[in-house]
């Protein structure tokens, strides 16, 4: 009996040793670069976690924020177009609370300019950041809890082990090449590649009118159209805008904010017009408030790209009703650099009025879908 209790003790002590060993390995390798920058580091597409390390390890003067609409931009393209040293922090499906929190961390680490692709839907559901299960505020703040959850983590231990193997010279090259095709999170060699489309990406296959119209048919189908306006509420959206966007901007008067309404395809608004007019009303009213409010703030330059007919009516630019191609990404950067389509503080609703007119007049092309 005593012998078995000895084995029991040995098992538990050995487990404790393994736990501590795994934590030590993660600390030494530090795949997230939370403790120290590394030349050998690789990067992950899990932006909500990766951003915590990027903000601490990269040097930058401009933070780039948005949702999936802004996720494919390359930092190198932003730098070239705007003459800045940027850090892309866009997160797919992120809300205004998450975006404002991450931007605040980036500003605290030196960002003097923010480029913000501001979708109206980020203000729909923006729950308390302290209890957000998808974004660990403790990791960004490097609290004891945040560091413990990073170090005592099986997934990070696995990543650290792989990173360690990848640093061994004979394995370096083959593992680095294989990494993107393995179930490894930190697989990207260049920070510029985070969520960026490959240089040889087949744009026409992903972004074309057929797909855009198919997406339009899907979201306006009677069985799904109720999802179009799910969660939209004028009061809550304005409240979230004031708290997250205006709050952040007014707390940092020394930071310049270039904020733009992304160039969705016209079908995004036409879908609301046809299937959920109440949602369209909320969206236009909320963005009217946003435009009026932001143009009054001295450190904001607001751009509205939603009514640029040449782009938004060309359905070949999109993969669904909102996501635009890298060609449009390049246009956005050009407009930001040149100041085109900037909202005039004296007529903050001019482009919105134009959009409303376009939406009213638009007729959906008839294409036979499979």
């Amino acid at each position: 009996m005593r012998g078995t209790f000895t084995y029991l003790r040995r098992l538990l002590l050995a487990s404790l040793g393994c736990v501590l060993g795994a934590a030590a390995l993660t600390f030494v390798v530090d795949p997230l670069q939370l403790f120290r920058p590394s030349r050998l580091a690789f990067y992950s597409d899990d932006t909500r976690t990766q951003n915590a390390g990027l903000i601490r390890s990269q040097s930058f003067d401009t933070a780039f924020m948005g949702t999936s609409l802004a996720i494919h931009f390359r930092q190198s393209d932003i730098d070239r177009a705007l003459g800045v040293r940027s850090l892309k922090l866009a997160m797919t499906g992120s809300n205004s609370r998450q975006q404002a929190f991450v931007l605040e961390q980036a500003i605290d680490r030196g960002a003097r300019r923010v480029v913000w692709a501001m979708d109206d839907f980020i203000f729909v559901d923006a729950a308390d950041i302290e209890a957000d299960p998808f974004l660990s505020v403790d990791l960004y703040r490097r609290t004891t809890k945040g560091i413990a959850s990073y170090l005592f983590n099986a997934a990070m231990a696995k990543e650290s082990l792989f990173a360690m193997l990848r640093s061994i010279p004979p394995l370096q090259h083959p593992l680095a090449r294989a990494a993107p095709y393995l179930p490894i999170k930190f697989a990207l060699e260049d920070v510029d590649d985070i969520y960026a489309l490959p240089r040889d990406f087949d744009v026409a296959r992903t972004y074309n009118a057929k797909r855009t119209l198919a997406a339009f048919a899907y979201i306006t189908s009677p069985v799904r159209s109720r999802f179009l306006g799910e969660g939209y509420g004028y009061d809550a959206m304005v409240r979230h805008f004031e708290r997250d966007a205006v709050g952040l901007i007014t707390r940092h008067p020394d930071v310049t904010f270039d904020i733009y309404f992304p160039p969705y395809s016209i079908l995004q608004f036409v879908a609301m017009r046809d299937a959920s007019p109440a949602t369209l009303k909320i969206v236009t009213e909320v963005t009217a408030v946003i435009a009026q409010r932001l143009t009054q703030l001295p450190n904001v330059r607001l751009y509205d790209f939603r009514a640029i007919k040449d782009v938004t009516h060309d359905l070949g630019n999109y993969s669904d009703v909102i996501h635009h191609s890298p060609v449009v990404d390049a246009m956005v950067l050009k407009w930001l650099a040149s100041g085109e389509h900037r909202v005039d503080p004296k007529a903050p609703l001019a482009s919105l009025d134009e959009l409303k007119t376009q939406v009213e007049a638009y007729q959906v092309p008839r294409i036979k879908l499979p």
Partner: protein
Amino acid sequence: MLFNSYPFILLFLPVVLAGYFWLGRRSNLTPVIWLAAASLAFYAIGNWQFMALLLLSIAFNYGVGHLLIVAKLGPSQRKAALALGVVGDLLVLGIFKYAGFAAENINTLLGTHFAVHILLPVGISFYTFTQIAFLVDAYRGQVARYALPHYALFVTYFPHLIAGPILHHKDMIPQFERKESKHPDAHLILCGIIIFAIGLFKKTCLADGIQPLVALAFDARAPSFDQAWCGALAYTFQLYFDFSGYSDMAIGISLMFGIFLPVNFNSPYKATSIVEFWRRWHMTLSQFLRDYLYIPLGGNRRGRALRYVNLMITMLLGGLWHGAAWTFVVWGALHGAYLCINHAFNALVPKVPTSLVRPVRITGAVLTFLAVVVAWVFFRAERVDWAMLILRAMADPATSVFGREEVAALVLVSIYAALVWLVPNTQTIMGYDHGNRRVGEALRAGRMRPLVLYAASLVLAFGILGIQSHSEFIYFRF
């Protein structure tokens, strides 16, 4: 409370174990009361609003059981008492689990707008079935008189309460009555920890590890061929590791208390036929459905045609037991159809020539696995038409993408497939023999002891490191 949480592993379990063995030195009854109280506390943490229902259910069934076992009732009165018990149980289950579903269908049919919003009490499907079995056996005269604390512990016993295995009173209550189980047995505790560690690793590292890939098929608007397959296979493995991980943890925890729980999984994806699959997957549910539904319906005793009808009824109800949705009905119907085809094939081809046994077994295994994967698509999908969308994508190779993400997903799915098909299951590794109450004999004899111990310590460590903030078990929903 979750098994895969720090409060459970570091606080609840050690305290309950210590209290159980400390009380066990003084009496044979107080540890049972202690364990029942701990089980109720376990349930109340996070599910306090359903505590009253659980207690009422125990009191109701114990009362009806008492009538059937102790009271001197005539045959018709006994039948009435059984009917009262079973109908009462099914009524409660029906209200809490199926009222919303019924209202939804009535609304669709009649164009009405009834709204029924009832929260599903966690574990209700499990503790209802457990107690129905008790009542039926009491009616059949197969139950001895049990003390209330033992009965209450049998229903609430925390290792199984929320997601099984579905226990049988004849198996459990005699174990609760044994004096020996109240004294710490270092060997059983050691084996229990190792089995728990394997289960924890399965849940936190394997099931939670592959979970993100499931979205490739089930959260996509138009998945491609490869995305649909990777997502469907990812769910196939996630569900297995999640549920069998939970069952291993339940067995391991129970073993620390000196109680042997029945095995619930026996490498189901290695099955060479659907009949065999159901002897290996969620075994305690299969046994329950066989003993308390299929056989009372007539089983295979009334000819081939009625046998198929009984199979279909059993599997349809088995599907509905998992959840109140048409997707589960389709899942059950598919498995019912699979079983009918399997039995029909066995009847038509009673003997396979010796030279063809191996190829037939391999073909059977592949077909069985594919059939199970197809059925899981309905089990996981939100709606039947979404499941059909995924299945259509799985049948259309022309839509293949095979980008970086899909290749990485395929590599991960392949690793899981290798684990499922090549690695022995927990009871084989540990020599767990529920029937003979034996476990870890090789370990006790000293064979492979250092290897097992250090491998187990690594598995336990990674199981603990894999714990995420809140990751529920899939079967908690049922």
